[in-house]
Protein backbone atom coordinates (compact mmCIF):
# COMPACT_ATOMS: atom_id res chain seq x y z
CA UNK A 1 0.00 0.00 0.00
CA UNK A 2 2.69 2.45 1.16
CA UNK A 3 4.87 1.39 -1.76
CA UNK A 4 2.09 2.11 -4.18
CA UNK A 5 1.61 5.58 -2.82
CA UNK A 6 5.33 6.26 -2.96
CA UNK A 7 5.55 5.06 -6.55
CA UNK A 8 2.63 7.20 -7.59
CA UNK A 9 4.02 10.28 -5.85
CA UNK A 10 7.37 9.74 -7.54
CA UNK A 11 5.71 9.33 -10.91
CA UNK A 12 3.63 12.49 -10.42
CA UNK A 13 6.69 14.53 -9.50
CA UNK A 14 8.48 13.25 -12.59
CA UNK A 15 5.54 14.23 -14.77
CA UNK A 16 5.31 17.64 -13.11
CA UNK A 17 8.92 18.54 -13.75
CA UNK A 18 9.27 16.87 -17.13
CA UNK A 19 8.70 20.13 -19.04
CA UNK A 20 11.60 21.72 -17.14
CA UNK A 21 13.88 18.79 -17.87
CA UNK A 22 12.97 18.49 -21.53
CA UNK A 23 13.71 21.13 -24.07
CA UNK A 24 10.04 21.71 -24.82
CA UNK A 25 8.95 22.61 -28.33
CA UNK A 26 7.40 19.84 -30.33
CA UNK A 27 8.14 17.19 -27.73
CA UNK A 28 5.64 18.83 -25.38
CA UNK A 29 2.99 18.34 -28.01
CA UNK A 30 3.81 14.65 -28.30
CA UNK A 31 3.69 14.29 -24.52
CA UNK A 32 0.19 15.74 -24.51
CA UNK A 33 -0.84 12.85 -26.74
CA UNK A 34 1.01 10.39 -24.56
CA UNK A 35 -1.23 11.63 -21.74
CA UNK A 36 -4.44 11.21 -23.71
CA UNK A 37 -3.42 7.77 -24.92
CA UNK A 38 -2.45 6.76 -21.39
CA UNK A 39 -5.97 7.58 -20.22
CA UNK A 40 -7.44 5.53 -23.04
CA UNK A 41 -5.11 2.60 -22.46
CA UNK A 42 -5.99 2.59 -18.76
CA UNK A 43 -9.69 2.64 -19.63
CA UNK A 44 -9.31 -0.35 -21.89
CA UNK A 45 -7.02 -2.07 -19.41
CA UNK A 46 -9.68 -1.84 -16.70
CA UNK A 47 -11.87 -3.86 -19.00
CA UNK A 48 -9.34 -6.19 -20.59
CA UNK A 49 -6.66 -6.56 -17.94
CA UNK A 50 -8.85 -6.62 -14.86
CA UNK A 51 -12.22 -7.91 -15.98
CA UNK A 52 -10.84 -9.99 -18.85
CA UNK A 53 -13.33 -8.65 -21.38
CA UNK A 54 -12.01 -7.65 -24.79
CA UNK A 55 -13.17 -4.58 -26.66
CA UNK A 56 -12.29 -3.79 -30.25
CA UNK A 57 -14.49 -0.72 -30.30
CA UNK A 58 -13.07 1.61 -27.70
CA UNK A 59 -12.15 4.24 -30.24
CA UNK A 60 -15.92 4.64 -30.59
CA UNK A 61 -16.36 5.80 -26.99
CA UNK A 62 -13.34 8.05 -27.37
CA UNK A 63 -14.98 9.54 -30.44
CA UNK A 64 -18.37 9.90 -28.78
CA UNK A 65 -16.78 11.94 -25.99
CA UNK A 66 -14.96 14.10 -28.50
CA UNK A 67 -18.01 14.66 -30.72
CA UNK A 68 -20.45 15.29 -27.88
CA UNK A 69 -18.06 17.86 -26.41
CA UNK A 70 -17.45 19.34 -29.82
CA UNK A 71 -21.10 19.58 -30.82
CA UNK A 72 -22.29 20.87 -27.45
CA UNK A 73 -19.67 23.62 -27.36
CA UNK A 74 -19.93 24.71 -31.00
CA UNK A 75 -23.58 24.30 -31.95
CA UNK A 76 -25.16 24.73 -28.52
CA UNK A 77 -22.63 27.09 -26.95
CA UNK A 78 -22.10 24.99 -23.84
CA UNK A 79 -19.22 25.87 -21.58
CA UNK A 80 -16.55 23.18 -22.22
CA UNK A 81 -16.40 22.42 -18.52
CA UNK A 82 -20.11 21.60 -18.63
CA UNK A 83 -19.97 19.77 -21.94
CA UNK A 84 -17.29 17.40 -20.71
CA UNK A 85 -19.22 15.82 -17.81
CA UNK A 86 -22.44 15.84 -19.85
CA UNK A 87 -20.69 13.89 -22.58
CA UNK A 88 -19.18 11.50 -20.04
CA UNK A 89 -22.54 10.80 -18.41
CA UNK A 90 -24.28 10.27 -21.75
CA UNK A 91 -21.55 7.92 -22.98
CA UNK A 92 -21.54 6.09 -19.64
CA UNK A 93 -25.30 5.53 -19.81
CA UNK A 94 -25.08 4.35 -23.43
CA UNK A 95 -22.30 1.94 -22.55
CA UNK A 96 -24.26 0.71 -19.56
CA UNK A 97 -27.31 0.00 -21.68
CA UNK A 98 -25.45 -1.71 -24.48
CA UNK A 99 -23.26 -3.46 -21.92
CA UNK A 100 -25.98 -5.76 -20.65
CA UNK A 101 -26.58 -7.61 -23.90
CA UNK A 102 -23.07 -7.26 -25.28
CA UNK A 103 -21.23 -8.58 -22.24
CA UNK A 104 -23.32 -11.71 -22.29
CA UNK A 105 -21.14 -12.68 -25.23
CA UNK A 106 -17.82 -14.37 -24.70
CA UNK A 107 -14.45 -14.65 -26.43
CA UNK A 108 -14.44 -13.92 -30.14
CA UNK A 109 -18.16 -13.16 -30.18
CA UNK A 110 -17.51 -10.32 -27.78
CA UNK A 111 -14.58 -9.19 -29.93
CA UNK A 112 -16.82 -9.16 -32.97
CA UNK A 113 -19.70 -7.39 -31.26
CA UNK A 114 -17.52 -4.61 -29.86
CA UNK A 115 -15.85 -4.28 -33.23
CA UNK A 116 -19.27 -3.92 -34.84
CA UNK A 117 -20.27 -1.35 -32.24
CA UNK A 118 -17.14 0.68 -32.98
CA UNK A 119 -17.84 0.57 -36.70
CA UNK A 120 -21.47 1.60 -36.23
CA UNK A 121 -20.40 4.60 -34.15
CA UNK A 122 -17.80 5.50 -36.77
CA UNK A 123 -20.39 5.37 -39.54
CA UNK A 124 -22.73 7.59 -37.54
CA UNK A 125 -19.95 10.20 -37.21
CA UNK A 126 -19.48 10.04 -40.96
CA UNK A 127 -23.12 10.18 -41.97
CA UNK A 128 -24.76 12.67 -39.62
CA UNK A 129 -23.22 15.51 -41.55
CA UNK A 130 -25.53 18.20 -40.13
CA UNK A 131 -24.34 17.44 -36.61
CA UNK A 132 -20.78 16.25 -36.97
CA UNK A 133 -19.67 17.86 -40.19
CA UNK A 134 -19.25 14.38 -41.64
CA UNK A 135 -15.94 13.19 -43.02
CA UNK A 136 -14.61 16.74 -43.33
CA UNK A 137 -14.71 17.10 -39.57
CA UNK A 138 -15.84 19.59 -36.99
CA UNK A 139 -13.75 22.68 -36.39
CA UNK A 140 -13.79 25.68 -34.11
CA UNK A 141 -14.08 23.75 -30.86
CA UNK A 142 -13.09 26.11 -28.02
CA UNK A 143 -10.12 25.54 -25.72
CA UNK A 144 -10.75 24.94 -22.05
CA UNK A 145 -10.39 27.94 -19.81
CA UNK A 146 -9.75 28.10 -16.11
CA UNK A 147 -9.44 31.20 -13.96
CA UNK A 148 -8.70 33.37 -16.98
CA UNK A 149 -6.11 30.97 -18.38
CA UNK A 150 -6.92 29.58 -21.78
CA UNK A 151 -5.39 26.19 -22.43
CA UNK A 152 -4.15 26.97 -25.90
CA UNK A 153 -0.45 26.17 -25.85
CA UNK A 154 1.36 22.86 -25.63
CA UNK A 155 2.84 23.52 -22.21
CA UNK A 156 -0.51 24.58 -20.73
CA UNK A 157 -2.21 21.62 -22.34
CA UNK A 158 0.50 19.37 -21.00
CA UNK A 159 -0.39 20.29 -17.44
CA UNK A 160 -4.11 20.13 -18.15
CA UNK A 161 -3.99 16.69 -19.76
CA UNK A 162 -1.52 15.23 -17.31
CA UNK A 163 -3.56 16.54 -14.41
CA UNK A 164 -6.47 14.50 -15.69
CA UNK A 165 -4.26 11.55 -16.60
CA UNK A 166 -2.75 11.38 -13.12
CA UNK A 167 -6.23 11.56 -11.63
CA UNK A 168 -7.36 8.68 -13.85
CA UNK A 169 -4.26 6.71 -12.86
CA UNK A 170 -4.90 7.25 -9.17
CA UNK A 171 -8.55 6.41 -9.66
CA UNK A 172 -7.65 3.14 -11.37
CA UNK A 173 -4.94 2.21 -8.88
CA UNK A 174 -7.43 2.69 -6.04
CA UNK A 175 -10.04 0.71 -7.87
CA UNK A 176 -7.66 -2.18 -8.57
CA UNK A 177 -6.88 -2.57 -4.89
CA UNK A 178 -10.44 -2.39 -3.65
CA UNK A 179 -13.26 -4.86 -3.25
CA UNK A 180 -14.47 -4.03 -6.74
CA UNK A 181 -11.04 -4.51 -8.27
CA UNK A 182 -10.61 -7.82 -6.48
CA UNK A 183 -14.03 -8.98 -7.57
CA UNK A 184 -13.15 -8.08 -11.16
CA UNK A 185 -9.92 -10.00 -11.08
CA UNK A 186 -11.79 -12.88 -9.45
CA UNK A 187 -14.29 -12.89 -12.33
CA UNK A 188 -11.36 -12.93 -14.73
CA UNK A 189 -9.72 -15.93 -13.01
CA UNK A 190 -12.85 -18.00 -12.42
CA UNK A 191 -16.21 -16.51 -13.15
CA UNK A 192 -18.20 -19.35 -11.62
CA UNK A 193 -16.24 -19.32 -8.34
CA UNK A 194 -16.69 -15.56 -8.08
CA UNK A 195 -20.41 -15.90 -8.62
CA UNK A 196 -20.68 -18.59 -5.96
CA UNK A 197 -19.03 -16.17 -3.53
CA UNK A 198 -21.74 -13.63 -4.23
CA UNK A 199 -20.09 -11.54 -6.91
CA UNK A 200 -22.64 -10.41 -9.47
CA UNK A 201 -20.30 -10.91 -12.40
CA UNK A 202 -22.67 -9.61 -15.01
CA UNK A 203 -23.47 -6.36 -13.23
CA UNK A 204 -19.83 -5.83 -12.37
CA UNK A 205 -18.76 -6.30 -15.98
CA UNK A 206 -21.36 -3.83 -17.14
CA UNK A 207 -20.29 -1.33 -14.48
CA UNK A 208 -16.65 -1.54 -15.48
CA UNK A 209 -17.60 -1.38 -19.16
CA UNK A 210 -19.49 1.82 -18.46
CA UNK A 211 -16.66 3.21 -16.34
CA UNK A 212 -14.19 2.40 -19.06
CA UNK A 213 -16.41 4.19 -21.56
CA UNK A 214 -16.67 7.22 -19.26
CA UNK A 215 -12.89 7.52 -19.00
CA UNK A 216 -12.57 7.11 -22.78
CA UNK A 217 -15.21 9.78 -23.27
CA UNK A 218 -13.35 12.13 -20.94
CA UNK A 219 -10.17 11.54 -22.92
CA UNK A 220 -12.18 12.26 -26.06
CA UNK A 221 -13.50 15.56 -24.70
CA UNK A 222 -10.02 16.64 -23.68
CA UNK A 223 -8.74 15.66 -27.11
CA UNK A 224 -11.43 17.75 -28.77
CA UNK A 225 -10.71 20.80 -26.63
CA UNK A 226 -6.94 20.65 -27.08
CA UNK A 227 -7.03 19.91 -30.82
CA UNK A 228 -10.01 22.23 -31.48
CA UNK A 229 -10.71 20.09 -34.56
CA UNK A 230 -11.98 16.53 -34.85
CA UNK A 231 -12.79 14.24 -37.75
CA UNK A 232 -14.10 10.67 -37.87
CA UNK A 233 -10.82 9.26 -39.20
CA UNK A 234 -9.26 9.59 -35.72
CA UNK A 235 -11.85 7.28 -34.19
CA UNK A 236 -11.88 4.32 -36.55
CA UNK A 237 -11.20 0.63 -36.19
CA UNK A 238 -7.46 1.15 -36.53
CA UNK A 239 -7.33 3.27 -33.44
CA UNK A 240 -9.22 0.64 -31.44
CA UNK A 241 -6.58 -1.85 -32.48
CA UNK A 242 -3.82 0.59 -31.59
CA UNK A 243 -5.28 0.96 -28.10
CA UNK A 244 -5.42 -2.79 -27.71
CA UNK A 245 -1.79 -2.96 -28.74
CA UNK A 246 -0.84 -0.30 -26.18
CA UNK A 247 -2.49 -2.25 -23.39
CA UNK A 248 -0.91 -5.57 -24.31
CA UNK A 249 2.55 -4.19 -25.08
CA UNK A 250 2.46 -2.23 -21.83
CA UNK A 251 1.24 -5.11 -19.72
CA UNK A 252 -2.22 -6.39 -18.96
CA UNK A 253 -3.67 -5.44 -15.62
CA UNK A 254 -1.11 -2.77 -14.87
CA UNK A 255 -1.81 0.95 -14.74
CA UNK A 256 1.85 1.84 -15.19
CA UNK A 257 2.01 -0.71 -17.98
CA UNK A 258 -0.69 1.23 -19.79
CA UNK A 259 1.43 4.35 -19.47
CA UNK A 260 4.49 2.55 -20.84
CA UNK A 261 2.52 1.07 -23.71
CA UNK A 262 0.91 4.39 -24.58
CA UNK A 263 4.24 6.20 -24.34
CA UNK A 264 6.04 3.68 -26.53
CA UNK A 265 3.39 3.53 -29.22
CA UNK A 266 2.98 7.31 -29.30
CA UNK A 267 6.70 8.05 -29.38
CA UNK A 268 7.62 5.26 -31.77
CA UNK A 269 6.28 6.91 -34.93
CA UNK A 270 8.21 10.05 -33.96
CA UNK A 271 11.40 8.07 -33.60
CA UNK A 272 10.76 6.23 -36.87
CA UNK A 273 9.89 9.41 -38.75
CA UNK A 274 13.29 9.50 -40.42
CA UNK A 275 12.74 6.02 -41.82
CA UNK A 276 10.15 7.31 -44.31
CA UNK A 277 8.16 4.51 -45.91
CA UNK A 278 10.05 1.90 -43.93
CA UNK A 279 8.51 3.00 -40.65
CA UNK A 280 5.42 0.83 -41.07
CA UNK A 281 7.62 -2.24 -41.54
CA UNK A 282 9.72 -1.45 -38.49
CA UNK A 283 6.56 -0.79 -36.49
CA UNK A 284 5.01 -4.13 -37.45
CA UNK A 285 8.23 -6.01 -36.86
CA UNK A 286 8.69 -4.38 -33.47
CA UNK A 287 5.23 -5.46 -32.33
CA UNK A 288 6.09 -9.06 -33.12
CA UNK A 289 9.49 -8.88 -31.44
CA UNK A 290 8.02 -7.19 -28.34
CA UNK A 291 5.39 -9.83 -27.80
CA UNK A 292 7.93 -12.54 -28.48
CA UNK A 293 10.51 -11.36 -26.00
CA UNK A 294 8.33 -9.56 -23.49
CA UNK A 295 5.14 -11.60 -23.44
CA UNK A 296 4.12 -10.06 -20.11
CA UNK A 297 4.40 -6.57 -21.52
CA UNK A 298 6.90 -3.80 -20.83
CA UNK A 299 5.93 -3.45 -17.20
CA UNK A 300 7.08 -7.00 -16.48
CA UNK A 301 9.64 -7.30 -19.27
CA UNK A 302 11.80 -4.29 -18.37
CA UNK A 303 12.46 -5.37 -14.75
CA UNK A 304 13.24 -8.88 -16.00
CA UNK A 305 15.66 -7.49 -18.54
CA UNK A 306 17.22 -5.28 -15.89
CA UNK A 307 17.71 -8.23 -13.55
CA UNK A 308 19.28 -10.18 -16.36
CA UNK A 309 21.72 -7.41 -17.15
CA UNK A 310 22.64 -6.97 -13.47
CA UNK A 311 23.19 -10.68 -13.17
CA UNK A 312 25.40 -10.78 -16.22
CA UNK A 313 27.40 -7.84 -14.95
CA UNK A 314 27.82 -9.57 -11.61
CA UNK A 315 29.03 -12.71 -13.32
CA UNK A 316 31.55 -10.99 -15.53
CA UNK A 317 32.68 -8.93 -12.56
CA UNK A 318 33.49 -12.03 -10.60
CA UNK A 319 35.18 -13.75 -13.46
Amino acid at each position, binding site marked *: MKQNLLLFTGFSILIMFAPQLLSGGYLMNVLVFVGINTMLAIALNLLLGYAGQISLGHAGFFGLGAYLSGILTTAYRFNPWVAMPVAAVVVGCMAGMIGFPILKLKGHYLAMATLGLGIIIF*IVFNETVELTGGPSGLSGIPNLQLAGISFDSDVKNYYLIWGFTLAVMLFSLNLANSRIGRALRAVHDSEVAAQVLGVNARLLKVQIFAMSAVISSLAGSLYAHTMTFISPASFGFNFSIEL*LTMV*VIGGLGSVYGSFLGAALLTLLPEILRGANDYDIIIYGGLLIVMVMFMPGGLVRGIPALYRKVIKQKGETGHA
Partner: protein
Amino acid sequence: MQFDQILQYTLSGISTGAIYALIGIGFSIIYNATGIINFAQGEFVMLGGLLTLSCLELLNLPLWAAVPCAVAVSTVVGVLFERLAIRPLRQPTPINLVIITIGGSILIRGLAMLVWGKDTHTIPPFSGDTPIAIGGATILPQHLWILAITLIIIVINKIYFYHTISGKAMRACSYNRRAAGLVGIDVRRMVLFSFIISSAMGAVAGIIVAPLTMTAYDVGVMLGLKGFCAAIIGGMSSGISTVIGGLILGVLESLGAGLISSGYKDAIAFIILLLIMFIRPQGLFGKADSERV
Protein backbone atom coordinates in the same frame (compact mmCIF):
# COMPACT_ATOMS: atom_id res chain seq x y z
CA MET B 1 -40.04 -1.75 -55.70
CA GLN B 2 -39.44 -3.96 -58.67
CA PHE B 3 -38.58 -7.60 -58.57
CA ASP B 4 -35.53 -7.29 -60.79
CA GLN B 5 -34.08 -4.68 -58.47
CA ILE B 6 -34.35 -7.03 -55.51
CA LEU B 7 -32.88 -9.78 -57.65
CA GLN B 8 -29.94 -7.57 -58.57
CA TYR B 9 -29.33 -6.65 -54.91
CA THR B 10 -29.41 -10.29 -53.93
CA LEU B 11 -27.13 -11.42 -56.73
CA SER B 12 -24.64 -8.66 -55.99
CA GLY B 13 -24.81 -9.55 -52.33
CA ILE B 14 -24.19 -13.21 -52.99
CA SER B 15 -21.12 -12.61 -55.11
CA THR B 16 -19.63 -10.22 -52.54
CA GLY B 17 -20.65 -12.61 -49.78
CA ALA B 18 -18.89 -15.54 -51.43
CA ILE B 19 -15.62 -13.66 -51.09
CA TYR B 20 -16.29 -12.88 -47.43
CA ALA B 21 -17.02 -16.57 -47.00
CA LEU B 22 -13.73 -17.70 -48.53
CA ILE B 23 -11.78 -15.35 -46.30
CA GLY B 24 -13.93 -16.37 -43.35
CA ILE B 25 -13.15 -20.04 -43.85
CA GLY B 26 -9.47 -19.17 -43.78
CA PHE B 27 -10.03 -17.50 -40.39
CA SER B 28 -11.93 -20.53 -39.10
CA ILE B 29 -9.38 -23.11 -40.18
CA ILE B 30 -6.60 -21.38 -38.28
CA TYR B 31 -8.87 -20.64 -35.34
CA ASN B 32 -9.95 -24.25 -35.03
CA ALA B 33 -6.47 -25.69 -35.27
CA THR B 34 -4.78 -23.13 -33.06
CA GLY B 35 -7.27 -20.94 -31.25
CA ILE B 36 -5.73 -17.93 -32.99
CA ILE B 37 -7.79 -15.21 -34.58
CA ASN B 38 -5.42 -14.43 -37.40
CA PHE B 39 -5.69 -10.72 -38.11
CA ALA B 40 -3.17 -11.16 -40.92
CA GLN B 41 -5.66 -13.24 -42.92
CA GLY B 42 -6.64 -10.27 -45.10
CA GLU B 43 -3.03 -9.75 -46.13
CA PHE B 44 -2.98 -13.08 -47.93
CA VAL B 45 -5.94 -11.86 -49.95
CA MET B 46 -3.90 -8.83 -50.90
CA LEU B 47 -0.83 -10.95 -51.69
CA GLY B 48 -2.84 -13.25 -53.95
CA GLY B 49 -4.03 -10.38 -56.13
CA LEU B 50 -0.77 -8.48 -56.30
CA LEU B 51 1.40 -11.54 -56.86
CA THR B 52 -0.82 -12.58 -59.76
CA LEU B 53 -0.36 -9.12 -61.19
CA SER B 54 3.42 -9.47 -60.99
CA CYS B 55 3.33 -12.93 -62.53
CA LEU B 56 1.24 -11.63 -65.40
CA GLU B 57 3.10 -8.42 -66.05
CA LEU B 58 6.70 -9.01 -65.00
CA LEU B 59 7.09 -12.70 -65.75
CA ASN B 60 4.63 -12.60 -68.65
CA LEU B 61 3.06 -15.84 -67.51
CA PRO B 62 -0.35 -16.84 -68.85
CA LEU B 63 -3.18 -16.63 -66.33
CA TRP B 64 -3.40 -20.38 -65.71
CA ALA B 65 0.25 -20.40 -64.66
CA ALA B 66 0.19 -17.10 -62.81
CA VAL B 67 -2.56 -18.16 -60.42
CA PRO B 68 -0.87 -21.26 -58.95
CA CYS B 69 2.38 -19.35 -58.84
CA ALA B 70 0.82 -16.54 -56.81
CA VAL B 71 -0.94 -19.01 -54.50
CA ALA B 72 2.34 -20.84 -53.94
CA VAL B 73 4.25 -17.68 -53.03
CA SER B 74 1.48 -16.52 -50.67
CA THR B 75 1.55 -19.92 -49.00
CA VAL B 76 5.28 -19.62 -48.50
CA VAL B 77 4.68 -16.27 -46.80
CA GLY B 78 2.08 -17.98 -44.61
CA VAL B 79 4.53 -20.71 -43.66
CA LEU B 80 7.26 -18.19 -42.90
CA PHE B 81 4.84 -16.21 -40.75
CA GLU B 82 3.92 -19.30 -38.73
CA ARG B 83 7.54 -20.42 -38.39
CA LEU B 84 9.06 -17.06 -37.53
CA ALA B 85 6.32 -15.36 -35.54
CA ILE B 86 3.78 -17.83 -34.17
CA ARG B 87 5.84 -20.89 -33.31
CA PRO B 88 8.65 -19.26 -31.31
CA LEU B 89 6.15 -17.49 -29.03
CA ARG B 90 6.91 -18.30 -25.42
CA GLN B 91 3.61 -17.30 -23.85
CA PRO B 92 1.01 -18.00 -26.51
CA THR B 93 -1.94 -16.45 -24.69
CA PRO B 94 -4.82 -15.64 -27.04
CA ILE B 95 -4.32 -11.91 -26.62
CA ASN B 96 -0.58 -12.11 -27.32
CA LEU B 97 -1.35 -14.09 -30.45
CA VAL B 98 -3.79 -11.42 -31.54
CA ILE B 99 -1.11 -8.76 -31.21
CA ILE B 100 1.41 -10.93 -33.06
CA THR B 101 -0.94 -11.36 -35.98
CA ILE B 102 -1.69 -7.64 -35.99
CA GLY B 103 2.06 -7.01 -36.09
CA GLY B 104 2.41 -9.54 -38.87
CA SER B 105 -0.37 -7.93 -40.83
CA ILE B 106 1.24 -4.48 -40.57
CA LEU B 107 4.61 -5.93 -41.55
CA ILE B 108 3.30 -7.78 -44.60
CA ARG B 109 1.31 -4.74 -45.69
CA GLY B 110 4.40 -2.55 -45.33
CA LEU B 111 6.51 -4.88 -47.41
CA ALA B 112 3.81 -5.03 -50.06
CA MET B 113 3.74 -1.24 -50.13
CA LEU B 114 7.46 -1.18 -50.86
CA VAL B 115 7.22 -3.85 -53.54
CA TRP B 116 4.09 -2.75 -55.38
CA GLY B 117 3.79 0.89 -54.39
CA LYS B 118 0.65 2.59 -53.18
CA ASP B 119 -1.23 2.56 -56.45
CA THR B 120 -4.28 0.48 -57.13
CA HIS B 121 -3.82 -2.20 -59.74
CA THR B 122 -6.16 -4.35 -61.74
CA ILE B 123 -5.86 -7.72 -63.38
CA PRO B 124 -7.89 -8.76 -66.42
CA PRO B 125 -11.04 -10.83 -65.87
CA PHE B 126 -10.64 -14.58 -66.45
CA SER B 127 -13.08 -14.76 -69.31
CA GLY B 128 -14.04 -11.36 -70.60
CA ASP B 129 -16.48 -8.90 -69.13
CA THR B 130 -19.60 -9.26 -71.21
CA PRO B 131 -22.51 -9.02 -68.76
CA ILE B 132 -24.81 -12.03 -68.42
CA ALA B 133 -28.49 -11.35 -67.88
CA ILE B 134 -30.38 -13.37 -65.29
CA GLY B 135 -34.00 -12.36 -65.11
CA GLY B 136 -33.87 -8.58 -64.91
CA ALA B 137 -30.47 -8.60 -63.27
CA THR B 138 -26.97 -8.84 -64.69
CA ILE B 139 -23.79 -10.40 -63.47
CA LEU B 140 -20.32 -10.73 -64.95
CA PRO B 141 -18.55 -13.92 -65.95
CA GLN B 142 -16.13 -13.22 -63.13
CA HIS B 143 -18.98 -13.57 -60.64
CA LEU B 144 -19.57 -17.08 -61.93
CA TRP B 145 -15.89 -17.81 -61.44
CA ILE B 146 -16.14 -16.61 -57.88
CA LEU B 147 -19.16 -18.74 -57.09
CA ALA B 148 -17.73 -21.79 -58.79
CA ILE B 149 -14.35 -21.54 -57.10
CA THR B 150 -15.98 -20.96 -53.71
CA LEU B 151 -18.04 -24.08 -54.26
CA ILE B 152 -15.03 -26.13 -55.32
CA ILE B 153 -13.07 -25.01 -52.29
CA ILE B 154 -15.88 -25.96 -49.94
CA VAL B 155 -16.08 -29.40 -51.50
CA ILE B 156 -12.32 -29.89 -51.29
CA ASN B 157 -12.45 -28.76 -47.67
CA LYS B 158 -15.16 -31.21 -46.89
CA ILE B 159 -13.24 -34.06 -48.47
CA TYR B 160 -10.04 -33.05 -46.74
CA PHE B 161 -11.51 -32.68 -43.27
CA TYR B 162 -13.69 -35.78 -43.35
CA HIS B 163 -11.90 -38.24 -45.61
CA THR B 164 -8.17 -37.82 -45.13
CA ILE B 165 -5.97 -38.71 -42.18
CA SER B 166 -4.44 -35.28 -41.81
CA GLY B 167 -7.84 -33.63 -42.16
CA LYS B 168 -9.28 -35.79 -39.43
CA ALA B 169 -6.26 -35.08 -37.26
CA MET B 170 -6.86 -31.39 -37.77
CA ARG B 171 -10.46 -31.76 -36.70
CA ALA B 172 -9.31 -33.64 -33.64
CA CYS B 173 -7.09 -30.66 -32.80
CA SER B 174 -10.03 -28.34 -33.09
CA TYR B 175 -12.05 -30.33 -30.56
CA ASN B 176 -9.30 -30.73 -28.02
CA ARG B 177 -5.69 -29.89 -28.72
CA ARG B 178 -4.30 -31.58 -25.61
CA ALA B 179 -6.19 -34.78 -26.20
CA ALA B 180 -5.15 -34.76 -29.85
CA GLY B 181 -1.55 -34.45 -28.76
CA LEU B 182 -1.98 -37.33 -26.31
CA VAL B 183 -3.20 -39.71 -29.00
CA GLY B 184 -0.11 -39.02 -31.05
CA ILE B 185 -1.19 -36.25 -33.40
CA ASP B 186 1.62 -33.82 -34.13
CA VAL B 187 -0.25 -30.70 -33.11
CA ARG B 188 2.45 -28.28 -34.22
CA ARG B 189 2.40 -29.77 -37.67
CA MET B 190 -1.35 -29.33 -37.78
CA VAL B 191 -0.85 -25.67 -36.86
CA LEU B 192 1.52 -25.30 -39.78
CA PHE B 193 -0.94 -27.09 -42.05
CA SER B 194 -3.71 -24.77 -41.01
CA PHE B 195 -1.58 -21.77 -41.97
CA ILE B 196 -0.75 -23.36 -45.32
CA ILE B 197 -4.38 -24.04 -46.14
CA SER B 198 -5.74 -20.72 -45.05
CA SER B 199 -3.02 -18.61 -46.66
CA ALA B 200 -3.58 -20.48 -49.90
CA MET B 201 -7.32 -19.93 -49.63
CA GLY B 202 -6.86 -16.26 -48.83
CA ALA B 203 -4.67 -15.91 -51.90
CA VAL B 204 -7.25 -17.63 -54.10
CA ALA B 205 -9.92 -15.27 -52.82
CA GLY B 206 -7.66 -12.32 -53.56
CA ILE B 207 -7.03 -13.49 -57.10
CA ILE B 208 -10.60 -14.12 -58.10
CA VAL B 209 -11.89 -10.78 -56.83
CA ALA B 210 -9.08 -8.63 -58.17
CA PRO B 211 -10.57 -8.30 -61.69
CA LEU B 212 -13.76 -6.91 -60.17
CA THR B 213 -12.62 -4.91 -57.20
CA MET B 214 -9.00 -4.09 -58.14
CA THR B 215 -6.27 -4.58 -55.64
CA ALA B 216 -3.72 -2.55 -53.72
CA TYR B 217 -1.40 -3.05 -50.79
CA ASP B 218 -4.12 -2.09 -48.32
CA VAL B 219 -7.17 -4.03 -49.57
CA GLY B 220 -6.57 -6.74 -46.97
CA VAL B 221 -7.80 -4.68 -44.04
CA MET B 222 -11.43 -4.27 -45.03
CA LEU B 223 -11.78 -7.67 -46.68
CA GLY B 224 -10.16 -9.33 -43.68
CA LEU B 225 -12.59 -7.59 -41.35
CA LYS B 226 -15.61 -8.73 -43.34
CA GLY B 227 -14.23 -12.26 -43.57
CA PHE B 228 -13.78 -12.27 -39.81
CA CYS B 229 -17.43 -11.30 -39.39
CA ALA B 230 -18.53 -14.04 -41.77
CA ALA B 231 -16.56 -16.60 -39.78
CA ILE B 232 -18.11 -15.50 -36.52
CA ILE B 233 -21.66 -15.52 -37.85
CA GLY B 234 -20.92 -19.01 -39.07
CA GLY B 235 -19.74 -20.05 -35.61
CA MET B 236 -16.07 -20.37 -36.66
CA SER B 237 -16.78 -23.45 -38.71
CA SER B 238 -14.67 -24.36 -41.69
CA GLY B 239 -17.66 -25.51 -43.65
CA ILE B 240 -20.99 -24.46 -44.96
CA SER B 241 -22.13 -22.32 -42.02
CA THR B 242 -19.31 -19.84 -42.56
CA VAL B 243 -20.32 -19.69 -46.21
CA ILE B 244 -23.85 -18.90 -45.14
CA GLY B 245 -22.39 -16.34 -42.75
CA GLY B 246 -20.56 -14.66 -45.60
CA LEU B 247 -23.60 -14.70 -47.85
CA ILE B 248 -25.81 -13.24 -45.12
CA LEU B 249 -23.35 -10.41 -44.60
CA GLY B 250 -23.01 -9.75 -48.32
CA VAL B 251 -26.74 -9.78 -49.00
CA LEU B 252 -27.50 -7.63 -45.92
CA GLU B 253 -25.02 -5.03 -47.11
CA SER B 254 -26.37 -5.03 -50.61
CA LEU B 255 -30.03 -4.87 -49.58
CA GLY B 256 -29.20 -2.26 -46.96
CA ALA B 257 -27.49 -0.10 -49.56
CA GLY B 258 -30.25 -0.54 -52.10
CA LEU B 259 -33.35 -0.34 -49.97
CA ILE B 260 -32.49 1.74 -46.93
CA SER B 261 -29.40 3.91 -47.10
CA SER B 262 -26.12 3.40 -48.87
CA GLY B 263 -24.25 5.49 -46.30
CA TYR B 264 -25.44 3.34 -43.44
CA LYS B 265 -25.19 -0.01 -45.24
CA ASP B 266 -22.30 -1.34 -43.13
CA ALA B 267 -23.99 -0.04 -39.99
CA ILE B 268 -27.22 -1.81 -40.96
CA ALA B 269 -25.34 -5.06 -41.51
CA PHE B 270 -23.62 -4.73 -38.15
CA ILE B 271 -26.77 -3.79 -36.26
CA ILE B 272 -28.51 -6.88 -37.59
CA LEU B 273 -25.49 -8.96 -36.65
CA LEU B 274 -25.48 -7.53 -33.13
CA LEU B 275 -29.16 -8.29 -32.75
CA ILE B 276 -28.60 -11.85 -33.95
CA MET B 277 -25.84 -12.24 -31.41
CA PHE B 278 -27.92 -10.78 -28.60
CA ILE B 279 -30.62 -13.31 -29.31
CA ARG B 280 -28.22 -16.17 -29.89
CA PRO B 281 -25.03 -15.42 -27.94
CA GLN B 282 -23.49 -18.73 -28.99
CA GLY B 283 -23.53 -17.76 -32.67
CA LEU B 284 -26.07 -18.39 -35.36
CA PHE B 285 -25.03 -21.98 -35.80
CA GLY B 286 -23.24 -22.70 -32.53
CA LYS B 287 -24.73 -25.19 -30.12
CA ALA B 288 -25.32 -24.04 -26.57
CA ASP B 289 -22.79 -25.79 -24.40
CA SER B 290 -22.99 -25.65 -20.66
CA GLU B 291 -20.01 -24.84 -18.58
CA ARG B 292 -18.39 -27.82 -16.97
CA VAL B 293 -17.38 -27.32 -13.35
